């Protein structure tokens, strides 16, 4: 029996794989790495590609990742997979878009916050809720 390590592959939206394996092969940014038990602590970026998990000498499971991170600890290997291909310019465009939407909304760019108005608006909502509660308890 070869030594095994614990492997977790997760993405932001789901757990993809969790179990023991003899070897994990991952597409690190500077070339493929193969991780077996007792590997030194290791932290690397992944590029889009295939992660292969060798569960036994006969069974190999492939998973596609579109980038992410791999962490190796004595206790096991964790692969944080990205859900989509991330490129700097795409992130940048998303940020600009979010900013633009905020600017569109702010016709009044004074940037001065009106706490009194906020308080009044909240008080209104609170009173409405409280009235409902009262109404309810009177009838119960």
């Amino acid at each position, binding site marked *: 029996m070869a030594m095994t390590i614990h492997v977790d592959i997760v993405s932001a939206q789901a757990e993809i794989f969790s179990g023991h394996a003899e070897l994990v092969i991952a597409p690190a940014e500077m070339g493929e790495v193969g991780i077996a038990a007792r590997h030194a*602590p*290791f932290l690397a970026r992944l590029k889009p590609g295939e992660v292969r998990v060798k569960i036994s000498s006969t069974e190999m499971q492939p998973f596609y990742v579109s980038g992410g991170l791999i962490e190796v600890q004595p206790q096991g290997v964790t692969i*944080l997979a990205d859900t989509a291909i991330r490129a700097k310019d795409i992130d940048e465009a*998303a940020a600009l878009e979010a900013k633009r939407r905020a600017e569109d909304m702010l016709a009044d760019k004074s940037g001065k916050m009106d706490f009194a*108005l906020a308080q009044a608006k909240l008080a209104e909502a609170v009173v409405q809720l409280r009235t409902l509660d009262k109404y309810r308890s009177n009838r119960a």
Partner: protein
Amino acid sequence: MAVGKEIRLKIASIKNTQKITRAMEMVAASKMRKTQDRMQATRPYSQRIIKIIQHLATANPEYRHPYTIARPVKRVGLILISSDRGLCGGLNANLFRLAIRRMREWDAQGVAVTMAIIGLKGQSFFGSIGAQVIAQTTRLGDRPELQDILGVIKVQLDAFADGSVDEVHLLSNDFVNTMTQKPTLTQLLPIASADMEEGAKAQWDYIYEPDAREVLDQLLVRYVESLVFQGLVENNACEQAARMVAMKSASDNAGKLIKELQLIYNKARQAAITQEIAEIVGGAAAV
């Protein structure tokens, strides 16, 4: 019979309202189950990444990332997660109340607040009171994707990196259970050392590829993203749960109202009949 026509109309209208609230309650109940599943599904990722951050803290890294370094606070960035739709009880109002309270405290200390907002309700509220909103995204629907909120997060991360804010906080609803949702403020940046299990500083460090700075850059950005995304998914579950409860009590209240009105209507009808008989009897006696 013409008696109590208004009351009958009123009852019919309340019945219609009740049908709507009941339908909304059922829709919310089924959506709540789905959003809760989604909330469970995103948990492993954030748990793992938190663990890695903790490992990193016990390590002896050759490089300290700016995201982990605290500096004097002059301006804070706030990422606020609200729902897109209303009719969910006090969910958003409670959250905004906490936000305003904290912002007042900051204001009193001379700390300026810039906001990034997710969700229509937050947008309209903070827009109307003139908060400084630097980024927003709305209408994410019931199945938000991580990609949808990256822009908003990046704006605050960039602001932290270039020094225009000194702390970044996340404000969202915490899903306690179906009946309880708790507005919560979490500090995202700088990554608090309390999260990082002080103490056991070991003499080891990771082997980084390609190098420490680039790997940590990506790791810490992913960490913040995963926390915000978790908050968003959780807020969604909160919204559905709150709506279900609110609509259930609305339906119950409508039921009570109908009962009361029905009673009044029956009494009025009975009174009219009695009066009519009395008149007939009176008329017959007079003959």
